[in-house]
């Protein structure tokens, strides 16, 4: 120890802690300072750990954070970093209010006060620069709106916004900029402010040597105050750990401007969000800049204001500021929260996003994230996009609803209902004389009176009961066999079990009842009059059909009103739909998507 001290003077540092004395005794209320220090240390440690795996770019940010969540202890450390940052904000506010009420900013502690007041907004901004880093929808919307709020500041606003976002829009440079602010610039600023803050505290605190011996209340800081600090810290940090453990902090949906949602700021900013409601248009700057600016200046000047006013006025004023501040903050926050609580749109958006959050994490766990980024996971997910795309592109004619009418009902149904298209039930219905002309199948199409319907209505009629029975049995085989062509996920087990039946059915289709008179089926029949039954309702069959139903393989010239969605290969942009969209719709109709197996 002496060896080290004679070279570095380290004992001076240790002694300044050891010799510190509290003239009025130790107290619980003073423990906010020490507690904040340790929370700060936790924040730095968890932050450094996260840095080892985080990748700052639009396609990789979300993926890397999802990867962190999958590492041993990763989710816990990220949760700690998140909840701890908010605990810091809350505790620092309490700490500041405490100092304000106790008037601990008086001579010679002005610098301590001023650095403290500067740390407060710096800490909030520090947290704000971290929120968009995981590349979530919430984070990106927040920084986008925050950027536009900055831009509404007269003259310098637009320039600041561009420098912050690294261009006109939130993108890669926004992330690298925020990353720089979050892990480099703000730590340096905070380090300097905090360093000054703490050295000033030690400079102006009482030492054991210059203590009045008659003061019986006085106790050394170490360990009498330290034990209180650590107890408070343990309580608060224990609470944080509990929250991380029980609630966690699931990684929200990755940013995609195509997802409809109702963005809100973090809870500590909701009061500003509410305040903006009352100042619109050119007055907005009052809510975003002038009021917070005045509040901050007032607090910074507190030592000066205190000096020129009497003890009593100062006290009244300080209590007014604290109660006023708390009431304003909580009042505005409450107003906004209550309004959102009864806002159907907002609540809907919240549950919708929660479902998407669960889904995207499932998909990322199962498939991993492709190089284009997590944005593609939900965009290419038939379960999520299927219904949306079907409503947009198909449901003006087709319904997709079960027997009870549950599902998507067409605006004016004028084409077959595609619910469970290709399944045994669906095909059986199509081949049923009583159903083929119903609205569910060909009822509203030109095929109502077509050759197929005619054949179904007329076939199987016979004097002999035996013949009718045989025909019905054959039709059953046809249904099973044809449906097996679709290779539906939901029928995989049945198809496997019925291999023999399917083989027999194949022969019936090819040679038995005359399907191949009009349809092609593998090596039997020819194209040209009815749709190809080879691989009927399979993925590739459906994709090709939707792309061009008037193709020779399908309806040729007899195609009804179904558009060719993708038949221009020379100029792909001129097609109604791109290949990927058609594939997603197909997969959704076929019920083919990844589903997490829950036990």
């Amino acid at each position, binding site marked *: 120890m002496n060896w080290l001290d004679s070279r570095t003077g380290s004992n001076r540092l240790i002694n300044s802690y050891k010799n510190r004395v509290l003239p009025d005794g130790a107290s619980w209320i003073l423990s906010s300072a020490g507690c904040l220090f340790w929370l700060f240390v936790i924040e730095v440690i968890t932050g450094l750990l996260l840095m080892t795996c985080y990748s700052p770019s639009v396609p990789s940010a979300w993926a890397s954070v999802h990867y962190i969540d999958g590492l041993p202890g990763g989710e816990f450390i990220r949760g700690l970093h998140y909840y701890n940052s908010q605990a810091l904000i809350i505790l620092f506010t309490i700490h500041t209010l405490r100092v304000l009420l106790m008037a601990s900013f008086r001579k010679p502690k002005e610098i301590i006060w001023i650095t403290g007041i500067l740390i407060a907004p710096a800490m909030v901004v520090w947290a704000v620069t971290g929120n968009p880093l995981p590349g979530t929808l919430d984070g990106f919307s927040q920084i986008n709106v925050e950027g536009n709020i900055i831009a509404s500041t007269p003259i310098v606003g637009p320039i600041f916004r561009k420098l912050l976002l*690294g261009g*006109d829009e939130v993108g*890669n440079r926004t992330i690298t900029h925020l990353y720089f602010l979050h892990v480099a610039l703000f730590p340096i600023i905070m380090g300097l402010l905090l360093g000054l803050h703490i050295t000033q505290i030690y400079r102006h605190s009482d030492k054991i040597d210059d203590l009045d011996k008659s003061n019986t209340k006085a106790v050394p800081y170490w360990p009498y105050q330290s034990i209180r600090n650590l107890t408070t810290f343990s309580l608060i940090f224990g609470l944080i750990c509990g929250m991380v453990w029980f609630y966690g902090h699931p990684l929200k949906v990755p940013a995609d401007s195509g997802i409809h*949602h109702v963005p809100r700021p973090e809870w500590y900013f909701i009061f500003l969000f509410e305040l903006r409601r009352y100042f*619109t248009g050119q007055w907005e700057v009052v809510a975003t800049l002038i009021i917070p600016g005045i509040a901050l200046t007032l607090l910074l000047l507190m030592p000066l204001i205190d000096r020129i006013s009497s003890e009593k006025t100062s006290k009244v004023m300080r209590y007014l500021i604290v109660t006023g501040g708390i009431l304003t903050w909580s009042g505005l926050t409450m107003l906004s929260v209550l309004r959102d609580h009864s806002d159907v749109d907002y609540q809907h958006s919240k549950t919708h996003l929660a479902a998407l959050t669960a889904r995207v994490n499932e998909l990322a766990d199962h498939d991993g994230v492709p190089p284009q980024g997590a944005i593609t996971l939900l965009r290419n997910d038939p379960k999520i996009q299927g219904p949306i795309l079907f409503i947009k592109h198909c449901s003006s004619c087709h319904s997709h609803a079960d027997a009870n009418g549950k599902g998507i009902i067409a605006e004016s149904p004028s084409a077959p209902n595609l619910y469970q298209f290709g399944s045994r039930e669906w095909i059986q219905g199509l081949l049923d004389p009583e159903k083929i002309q119903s609205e569910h199948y060909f009822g509203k199409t030109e095929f109502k009176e077509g050759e197929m319907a005619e054949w179904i209505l007329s076939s199987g009629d016979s004097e002999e009961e035996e013949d009718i029975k045989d025909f019905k049995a054959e039709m059953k085989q046809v249904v099973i066999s044809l449906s097996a062509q679709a290779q539906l996920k939901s029928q995989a087990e049945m198809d496997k079990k019925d291999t023999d039946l399917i083989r027999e059915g194949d022969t019936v289709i090819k040679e038995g009842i005359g399907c191949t008179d009009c349809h092609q089926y593998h090596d039997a029949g020819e194209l040209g009059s009815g749709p190809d039954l080879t691989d009927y309702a399979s993925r590739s069959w459906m994709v090709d059909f939707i792309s061009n139903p008037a193709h020779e393989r399908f309806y040729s010239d007899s195609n009804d009103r179904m558009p060719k969605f993708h038949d221009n290969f020379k100029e792909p942009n001129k097609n109604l739909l791109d290949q990927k969209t058609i594939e997603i719709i197909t997969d959704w109709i076929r019920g083919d998507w990844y589903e997490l197996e829950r036990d």
Partner: protein
Amino acid sequence: MTRRKLLKSICTLISLFWIAAISSPVVKFILSPLKNKNEGPKKYRLVHLSQLKINSPEQFNIVSDHRDAWMVTPNETVGRVWMTRTSEIAENPKETTIRVFSAVCPHLGCTIQSTSDKKSMVCPCHKGMFHLDGEPISNKKLGYKNPTPRSMDSLNYEIIKDEKSEEWWIEVEYQKFKLGPTTKTPLS
């Protein structure tokens, strides 16, 4: 001048020289995002005229190569528009009237949505509300201050015939506008 004074001034000069020399690239580098020029208006073919719904606003994506710093993503949605056909398709399809608005809210740039009854438009961020013709709904009718500074930004469009397929297309001139001002000003 003493020798000591001279040495002091030389030290200062050398420091100043290097500060000046290094600050030029430093400042230029920091300000590089300001150089980022916004693309001017660009035309996009969005939909067949016959497919556009009448009197019911529908959202369409502007799809284009999207440049984001060091990355170019092909076929990315770079903007959104709301379109409504307000008349039957005229004998000369060019005379059909349609409304085309940018979906960017002129307040703070969130994406404007249609309300669930499809009778007005709403920005979910700060509840800016618009009539279907893009005009802001009055404060009186809303019961609170409409935060939007102006009506929805209308976009130029043209109804054109594709040479080959003979289909009538709607071609929209998409561009972005400054957020905040009470009149529509293109972002340059």
